[in-house]
């Protein structure tokens, strides 16, 4: 690619790919900033004709029912602010529990010797092969029988204690920590527990943070489980709220402006993560094969 025309062509290709990747997000924002009345007047300009915050106000429940109806929405109250909070709480609780408990288990598998360790580990691994839809049915039955439908704990529980992937992922890193460091600490009589928290965890801050970010994104995107468990407003998360919003709007003309405002709210935290941890995310995806 030393020849300039070829290189130029390649850059054109890359930029086209970037444009195709990013344009839909621009159109989402453009739509969110356009009143429904102006949305269908045949204008496809790249900038909103009469930019307005009304759609964001509507989905966040800041507009009065009259204003909402005037802007082409339903008068039904929408509280994306609450769904946003629920999503953040859901992700935070799952990250806290899953990363902590998976790290503890990963340490045991990597460093401790006990009977049945390898069998247990392969049992953990083999469940990675099972598609979630299979365990979702019995898990739903279990949470329902425990009275966990429409509760926050019911929503969080299946993700809270571990995922086979998280244990597997961290074990790889713990295995590569030199054993001598722990050995020295062990001979000092420091307990395993303290070695773990004061030596192993600080030494693996990087992988732990990476796992936390991956887990946060996945939980943020979760749809099927919240759809089954968190139906009521008080525990509803952003993804299911959007799907419900879409199904509730009058079928002739969906409230696209409102929907895109809600969609923008779901993208913003992800964008924030990408800005804060761009390099880490980009470098970490080679560890994942999660769809």
């Amino acid at each position, binding site marked *: 690619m030393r020849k300039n025309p070829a290189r130029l062509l390649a850059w054109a290709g890359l930029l086209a*790919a970037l444009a195709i990747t990013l344009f839909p997000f621009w159109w*989402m924002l453009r739509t969110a900033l356009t009143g429904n009345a102006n949305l269908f007047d045949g204008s496809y300009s790249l900038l909103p004709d009469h930019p307005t915050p009304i759609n964001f106000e509507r989905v966040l429940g800041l507009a009065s029912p009259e204003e909402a109806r005037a802007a082409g929405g339903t008068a039904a109250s929408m509280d994306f602010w609450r769904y946003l909070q629920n999503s953040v709480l859901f992700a935070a609780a799952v990250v806290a529990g899953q990363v902590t408990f998976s790290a503890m288990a990963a340490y045991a598998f990597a460093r401790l010797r006990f009977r049945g360790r390898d069998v247990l580990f392969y049992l953990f691994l083999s469940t990675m092969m099972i598609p979630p839809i299979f365990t979702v049915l019995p898990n739903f039955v279990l949470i329902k029988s425990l009275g966990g439908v429409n509760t926050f704990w019911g929503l969080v529980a299946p993700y809270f204690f571990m995922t086979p992937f998280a244990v597997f992922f961290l074990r*790889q890193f713990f295995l590569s920590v030199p054993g001598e460091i722990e050995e020295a600490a062990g001979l000092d009589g420091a307990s395993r527990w303290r070695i773990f928290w004061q030596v192993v965890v600080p030494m693996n801050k990087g992988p732990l943070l990476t796992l936390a970010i991956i887990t946060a994104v996945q939980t943020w995107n979760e749809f099927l489980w919240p759809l089954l468990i968190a139906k009521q407003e008080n525990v509803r998360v*952003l993804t299911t709220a959007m799907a419900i919003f879409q199904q509730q709007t009058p079928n002739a003309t969906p409230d*696209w402006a409102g929907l895109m405002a809600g969609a923008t709210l779901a993208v913003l935290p992800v964008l924030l993560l990408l800005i804060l941890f761009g390099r880490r995310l980009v470098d970490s*995806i*080679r*560890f994942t094969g999660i769809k």
Partner: protein
Amino acid sequence: MAATILERPLRRRTARRAGPSWQRGHGRIALVFLAPALLGFAAFYLVPTVRGLWFSFTDYNLLSDPDVVGLDNYGEMLGDRVFWNALKVTGVYVVFNVATQTVLALGLAVLMERLTRSVMIRAMVLLPWLVPNVTIALLWMWLLDANVGFVNHVMEQIGLAKQGFLFSPDQSILTVASINTWRHVGYTALLLFAGMQLIPRHLYEAGRIDGAGEWRMFRQITLPLLRPVLALVLVVSLIGSFQIFDTVAVTTEGGPVNASRVIYYYIYEKAFTQFEFGYASAMSVFLILFLVALTLLQMRLLRASTSDLA
């Protein structure tokens, strides 16, 4: 479902069989470390797997106690035309999605690899993969709207007829597949990009000295040496692709008629709208067996294609 790609090689050095005495037998403390994970594993992975298997032999419907019906659910499955159709629709989806996604991702990865190290470009490429499926589905539903969607506007501008896309029987499943291709190309490209980093630079330099062009170097250096990574990416893409649910649930709900009723969505409907838990479980068992067989088959092909570098 998850698998690890390009994982760091297991370093066995420190996991000796017979360590020093302080390292031997940590049963009690191991239990402390493992307790929460074991609880979660038993409650949400192990028991549900066994229970799901058992459901598949019963007529469980959430409301009344299950009766064992033997292989009836599996028998019903064989005669259920919607089930077979769902498998066919899923097959079309998977083939189209994985093929387009992999080819486009390979192209994108090569462009990135040859042109730039920019983290920002790689981050931008990853964005669609990080955004919830539901958001992506709604966004494309709007872009592809039959009357006022942007895509149809562009189609009209360049003299093509407006298309129904998601709501056309002929196009719906391919449209869903294209949406997910769009979502996953960047992610897949980054996986392949990481694989390309493992190819020694000097091979390209040697190629250049020999006067090889870009295309020849791609065909004779990149592609053969990327094969193991490519194969792994294919396995992961394929298994992930089979689990298409969110996009269908949000956009077409399986329609028009059964045109986009994929297997995951059909199982969901049977279980949670018709409460046929037994039947739904039987279909999931079938899906697992199918996926395991597919993985084993691919692993064999994978082993047959170890890197030419080795």
